[in-house]
């Protein structure tokens, strides 16, 4: 069960390190303990709570964010490692991102969202998938979702939403 993972006796400011994190286009300078995960820093230090904390061990994908365009489980990624990299979360870059917003709309209109706890991670993996492969096949979509759990939908409407987003994002007449 729960174990004290890290001893941190004494002052609560001991062990702090300064890290610069570029999140959604904004540079943040944060003082954190070196063992804090990116997920913890995003949620607790930067109050970006759209990224969800679920299994904490990289199995469910709910905490997925993009680092330099690549989808990663932020629960397995130390915040310190993300220094100098470009982090995008479900809240999206300042100034907006039409592709991200289209994916979010497709998820909403196709019934891909029930409880919504897996959804931010699903949206981020979709963003990364469609950036690499704008016209994924059904099998490619499923393969992309293999690191993500959804207990509500049975995945069907998620796959349909991703297909819809791919269609909507394709240049007119090209799909």
């Amino acid at each position: 069960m729960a174990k004290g993972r890290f001893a941190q006796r004494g002052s609560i400011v001991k062990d702090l390190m300064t890290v610069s994190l570029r999140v959604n286009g904004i540079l943040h300078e944060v003082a954190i303990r070196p063992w804090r995960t990116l997920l913890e820093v995003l949620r607790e230090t930067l109050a970006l709570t759209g990224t969800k904390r679920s299994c904490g061990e990289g199995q469910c994908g709910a905490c997925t964010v993009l680092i330099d365009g690549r989808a990663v489980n932020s629960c397995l990624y130390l915040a310190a490692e993300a220094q100098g990299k470009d982090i995008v979360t479900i809240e999206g870059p300042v100034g907006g991102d039409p592709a991200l917003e289209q994916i979010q709309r497709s998820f909403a209109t196709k019934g891909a969202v029930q409880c919504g706890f897996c959804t931010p991670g699903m949206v981020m993996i979709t963003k990364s998938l469609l950036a690499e492969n704008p016209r994924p096949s059904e099998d490619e979509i499923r393969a992309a979702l293999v690191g993500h759990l959804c207990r509500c939908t049975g995945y069907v409407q998620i796959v349909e939403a991703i297909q819809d987003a791919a269609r909507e994002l394709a240049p007119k007449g090209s799909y």
Partner: protein
Amino acid sequence: MAEDPRDKFHVLGRPTPKKDALLKASGRAEYADDIAMPGMLHGKLLRSPHPHARIVRIDSSRAAALPGVRAIVTGSDFPNIRYGNLPQTRDYLPLAIDTVRYIGDEVAAVAAIDEDTAEEALDLIQVEYEPLPAVFDPEAAMQPGAPQVHPLAPGNVSASSIFHFGDVETAFAKSDYVREDAFETQAVKQGMLEPHACIGMWDNIGKVTLWASKMSPYVVWRQLAMGLGIQPGSVRVVQTFVGGGFSGGKQEAMPMDFCAVLLSKKTGRPVKFVHGMDEVLTIGHMRHPMKIWLRTGTSADGRLLAQHCKLIANGGAYSSIGGFSMYLAGAMLNLPYRVPNIKFDAFRVYTNNGFCGALRGHTIPQLCFARDTQLELIAAELGLDPLEIRHRNAIQPGDVTANGFRIGTFAFDECIERVAETSGWREKRGKLPKYRGIGFGCGSHLSGARLMGHSASAAEIRVQEDGTVQLTTGSTDVGQGADTVLSMIAAEVLGVEAEDVRFTRVDTDSTPVDPGTFGSRVTFFTGNAVKRAAEEARRQLAEIAAQRMEANAEDLVFRGREIFNPRDERQRISLKDAVRWGAFRLGRIVSGRGVYAAGDENVDFRTGYGNLSPAYNPSACAVEVEVDPQTGQVAVVGFWGADDSGTPLNPLGVKGQVLGATVMSIGHALYENLIRVDGQVMNPSFRDYKMPLATDLPKLENFQHASVITWEPEGPFGAKESGQGAGTGVLAALANAIYDATGVRLTRLPMTPENILSGLKRVRETDRQRTP
């Protein structure tokens, strides 16, 4: 052809995106763990490492001295009042006082400045235990001399349900064919992605507030007051967004809830608890593992004459709603097949394991697995087609079952035929290549239950001067779409759009008291209450508009955000202008209330007789599988389901419900199994507790579900439930498909590759003996 009442729908019947979907998809929905309050502390629970032990002494002085720790509570800080659902099953304590009963039982709680400090403090709490003999197997626990899990439960029986309708012995004697089979099912977890989470606040005027991820906040509200020994009026439960529930701990007050508010009382700060997934997968509330013995007698032409079911469930350390869990399995022996004589003996047994409770389908899927597996064996023995034996025994509308269920709409024959068509059953059965097979399974569910305690629902509707509608109920949206379907019902009645309706989350200080979200009751019970509340608001608005326009209120129609007389074009006013005129000139507030109590029928839970639900729905499905003979792996290559959900009010939502229930059942059938060894959960992580992935499903074109449309007169706008019934037949369908593919008959869940491989070995040996 009869007129289709759906033709009159303006809002209902259209696939409608969930109201909060975009909010959630953009990360803006605030779940309990997303809430931070000024000065908030973080709590963690210390759990028992023993399956059964006496607590001799707890010394928390070293933990209290750790910098950053603000308070510690143990069982003796609470008033030692057992809480629970039913008077006879109140066996929970907020924290254990003298005895722990399973590995994971809560013993103490810490509030600290952050989670790391709280976790470290747990290691510094010294608990001296005196281990007691433990018992893990329910049949062993029933033996004389077995360790006693609770003092007042002879034979460790936590609940039983025993009933007999007709005369099974006489019917067995008259049967042409009798067989008995035994089945075994496993422990399955809810598997929601959001861990349990709450924030407790005990303020300086004595008001206790809990913000929490709860499906049934009023159950929590009552239990919290009960266990704290205070008046419910002093307690306020505020529901946050719920990241999946599927029943379980989100239905009840949990130790974290009690500890959050008591630690807040001690510290004067809000205290947040969030379980780790290892805790979620270890602690109570899981599907009851069962042993089921089913004896069935039929006539030579396959008519069911009698069924006797004996069932022993491994209940674990506490009761939850165990009595109802047992009753429900037996009650569903009466559906969806006609069985005139039924005997049922069910025992839920205390053991030193994590405890069991409700989980999507509750105890119905296990029973359906046994029955529809056995039905297939009977059909084979009697030389009957699997569909024919189901048609021959199908419940029909208007039937009264042996236990007193009064059947209204029930399109079971149509469901079977629809699945036969969509799956290509008749072309495939017996004609598929080796190691490929197709199986059939059926089940049934109810649209909310008439319980002994609180059954009725209420709704309030206010129409505002901007033409929007404030809808307030005590029901929760937990992702299933209650926010949307209830708003659509209100919009339909008031002639506005679903987007004009605001749906609130539960706050026990202001929303109407409600039983909660379980048993597929919300669309039916709360939906009826919403419809009536909207009709009352519409009546008030019609009076105001009639007065304004010098019209007859009875002539007025509500549509397109307007109120008008279709026979007189001069009589037309926008809804919001009517509201404003009523408020400004008449001082009238448009406010409707509605209730639904499902009539005055009741179930006598001592005899098992009575009409449990206002409506019942059947479902059928066919599954096609391919089995790898080298590895025993099962690939589900096709699924075709049909169910009679009455009239689907939001087809997009119904689709999500039935497919979600189906995939959850595929996991139950093939992979999921919470493995316990001497009470220790061996796989408390999503790495080792295997739930279905997107790659485990058939291709979209081979994964279909059809709604067989009926108009249930008792339901709101003809609707029935859709979230649970569709999954009930899937377990047996998979077992039957695996048999069709391999000749291996599995009666134990999950149907793992190991079991399939050893079955294949047996089949090959039998074949060799037959062919010299």
